[in-house]
């Protein structure tokens, strides 16, 4: 893993063309506030300008950042470079939707410094895309990938989802195969979650759509992991795969290792020196707070040692990097539990670390509590 201690910078772009029925990210579908938001973002950047060391990653996420006009994106990057310092090889990722990838867009993005694109494809099956009410088709997604590649991007990530209504396992493998045609450097394969507060979540409580059962979810997961590893990808986090070590998402890895990060924009989270804070999750109140000369923070917490440990454990068990066994020092019965987990084929222990196996990934959420308690 790109195990640097340099902090990462996240920008939340809270605008989308339409709202996808499964999505629980904060975004709005009106663009009237883009200018205010940009202006507020600048104010927020000023607040933190001297607080962080040089960043080596920027992640422009959302929302749908590629909906921003060229000058807006340029202004955004400008602001960041004006108030913060960055290491020369900074990874600059932008989340993109296929329908926004016009012929020129990739080149424009490269021009303003973006060197990694994470493309929200979700599926290469038109029926599935319709049921997800995405704004693009499979063909559009392929065209987008071609255009991005052609413009010279050497670090492309593709986001896919399984467990979609009506999706078969064969259909899912087909989707992965079509993504692999473009040799993406990175793949994120998420099991769809039916989140409370989303239209799909409601349909699920009403019984109109059914989440994957435990066995089906397991089998999709195993097929995904098996297939992609066969194709040479490294399964380095529950839902993330990299074609080579260097293509692991540098930015996201920071979240999993308690490396500091600064999140700008509504609903963004930040972490520095054991303190985590998160912003107001409404564009209006975010802007208002900054207008009035305040900070747009909605909440903050200081991690106790115990909380830090608990996070290290659960975050660690979600990655192939695993956990440092030193974390378990003085934990009652940790040896018994480790050997039980090894015998059950859920973890491997070497080099002073305990690392989840593929089967271990499947039950990663339950592992920390076996130790911390």
């Amino acid at each position, binding site marked *: 893993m790109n195990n640097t201690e340099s902090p990462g910078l996240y920008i939340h772009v809270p605008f989308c063309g339409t709202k996808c029925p499964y999505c629980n990210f904060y975004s709005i579908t009106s663009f009237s506030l883009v200018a205010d938001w940009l202006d507020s973002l600048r104010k927020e950047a000023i607040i933190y300008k001297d607080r962080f060391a040089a960043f080596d990653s920027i992640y422009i996420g959302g929302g749908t950042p590629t909906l921003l006009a060229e000058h807006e994106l340029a202004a955004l990057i400008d602001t960041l470079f004006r108030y913060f310092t960055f290491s020369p090889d900074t990874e600059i990722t932008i989340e993109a939707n296929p329908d926004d990838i016009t012929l020129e867009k990739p080149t424009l993005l490269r021009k303003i410094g973006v060197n990694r694109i994470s493309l929200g494809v979700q599926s290469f099956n038109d029926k599935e895309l319709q049921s997800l009410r995405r704004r693009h088709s499979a063909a559009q997604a392929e065209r987008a990938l071609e255009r991005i590649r052609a413009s010279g991007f050497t670090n492309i990530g593709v986001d896919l989802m399984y467990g979609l209504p009506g999706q078969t396992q064969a259909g899912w493998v087909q989707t992965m195969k079509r993504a692999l045609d473009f040799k993406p450097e990175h793949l994120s394969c998420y099991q769809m979650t039916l989140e409370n507060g989303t239209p799909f979540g409601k349909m699920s409580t009403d019984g109109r759509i059914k989440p994957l059962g435990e066995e089906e979810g397991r089998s999709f997961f195993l097929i995904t992991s098996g297939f992609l590893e066969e194709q040479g990808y490294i399964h380095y986090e529950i839902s993330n795969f990299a074609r080579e070590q260097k293509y692991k998402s540098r930015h996201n890895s920071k979240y999993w290792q308690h490396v500091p990060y600064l999140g700008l924009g509504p609903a963004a989270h930040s972490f520095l020196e054991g303190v985590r804070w998160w912003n107001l999750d409404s564009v209006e109140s975010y802007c208002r707070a900054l207008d009035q000369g305040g900070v747009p923070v909605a909440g903050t917490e200081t991690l106790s040692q115990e909380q830090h440990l*608990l996070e290290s454990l659960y975050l660690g068990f979600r990655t192939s990097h695993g956990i440092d066994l030193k974390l378990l020092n003085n934990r009652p019965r940790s040896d018994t539990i480790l050997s039980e987990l090894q015998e059950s084929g859920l973890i491997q222990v070497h080099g002073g670390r305990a690392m989840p196996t593929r089967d271990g990934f499947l039950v990663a959420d339950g592992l920390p509590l076996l130790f911390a308690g």
Partner: protein
Amino acid sequence: MPQIRNFSIIAHIDHGKSTLADRLIQHAGLVTERQFRDQILDTMDLERERGITIKSQTVTLPYTGKKGKEYDLNLIDTPGHVDFSYEVSRALASCEGVLLIVDASQGVQAQTVANLYMAMEHDLTIIPVINKIDLPSADVDQVKEQIENELGLDPEPSILCSAKEGIGIENVLEAIVEQIPAPTGNPHDPLTALIFDANYDPFRGTIISCRVFDGTVRPGDIIRFMSNNATYKVEEVGVFRLSREPRKELSAASVGYIISGIKTVSDTRIGDTITLNSNPAAAPLPGFKEAKPMVFSSIYPVSSDDYTSLVEALEKYKLNDSALIYQKDSSAALGQGFRCGFLGLLHLEIFQQRLEREYGQAIIMTAPSVRYQFRLQDGKTITIDNPQYYPDDAGIESSFEPFIKASIFIPERYMGEVMKLCIARRGVNPRFNYPTQGRVEVTFDMPLAEVIFDFYDRMKTITQGYGSFDYDLIEYREGDLVKLDILVNSEKVDALSLIVHRDRARDWGVRVCDRLKEAIPRHQFKIAIQGAIGGKIISRSTIPAFRKDVTAKCYGGDITRKRKLLEKQKKGKKRMKMVGSVMIPQGAFVAVLKSDNE
């Protein structure tokens, strides 16, 4: 000075003691109509929820007799359930007489007899009261016959009464003052006061309930506990109305309370005698016989951090429930705890609930056990109530278990099913008795161990609530006993071991394995549960592993939320015990005891 009468109301369960007490209290004008509620002396939540009396309660009633004399009547309402008979026996030591209530439709029942005998042992005046005469099914003549034949009392002076309708209350009061002798005792002799109950008040310390036999005690006096010579300065004395009512003094023959800022819980012992430091009595009063526990169970704090607080809670609890016997105990699986003895299963259940509600203690209780005897090859005989100390099989020459005489009253139509149940529970020597038309009394000799678990519930279900059940210990009988061990992922969980009859071992093994399978949540790995006798596996069940339990996404915005979720689960885990790598919920230790139909 009003004259004093000290009496208890005793009876079989539900025969109407507390309701009669209500009428006497109302007659004395102690409550306004608005303050009144039925069974007003049943103040504990558990008493009201279950509709039974658990604790004896004292109340002092003013009464002006027909002949114009003034009295202070010290009434003690007692519980009828056999499991609380220790409350009755202690109450009787403060009295000169009793009202023996008999339900006019139920007639004389097991605790009528048992409580009468206790009153006789104390040489008390006995006033039979036939209650519930308002019921259509009341049969006064038959009850009088039973009083004569089964109790050996003269039925003629029996008072007919309906506590519910308020009929016969004045006759009861007159009988109390006319028949029960005034207590003797000299207020000028050295103080002797018998502690018959107590409870701990966080602000005022231990509040002692006592009967003064001789002497007088006043605020400012220095009192001394005769068993340990601890001394305290009296802050307040008084009598019980519906709440405590301070008085200037308590003198010979009164029943009341003493408060003297006693913060050392262990200084107060139920049965001890209080005297004055300046003018001590020559000898203490006889005190009480120890309670004889029938059922034993170990308790452990759910979280081992809470051990000290459990120790304190038990001390305080014991002040208010002196029938509880306990001593230190420890288990490999559950850590430090206590072995407790109870008078019966209801006592055990009430103990657990009071400890949780009143003292905030979350505890794990192990399966109740009776007390077994083992004759060893070397000629020694040992008594064991804790499966953990089951002797080496090879050393056992013969084993013995307690047998009871189980009496079951049922409508005749349930006889077949009840017989089946009793036989399945190793009942022998059935006898039948037809006290009234359509009802039958079935009597079996049965191992106590077979009824402490689930028997009463099953019987109630079978008889749709129409059955009643009582038992008396008769003797120890030889039986082929074995120890059933329970293993969780090959690790023996000592706290789950049971001593069982060989004939029933397989049933038990299967049941415990099945119950644990339901009670232990799935883990990340497979869990094997086995029942074993002397290393031989006789039953097993398997809890399959989680197949998938992981959320798809975890980025910056998810981390705090997810940790909070884990923290919540972790709190839940505090109520779990780790055995090896398996988390066993506290409930699992008790789940093995739940009956099939729950």
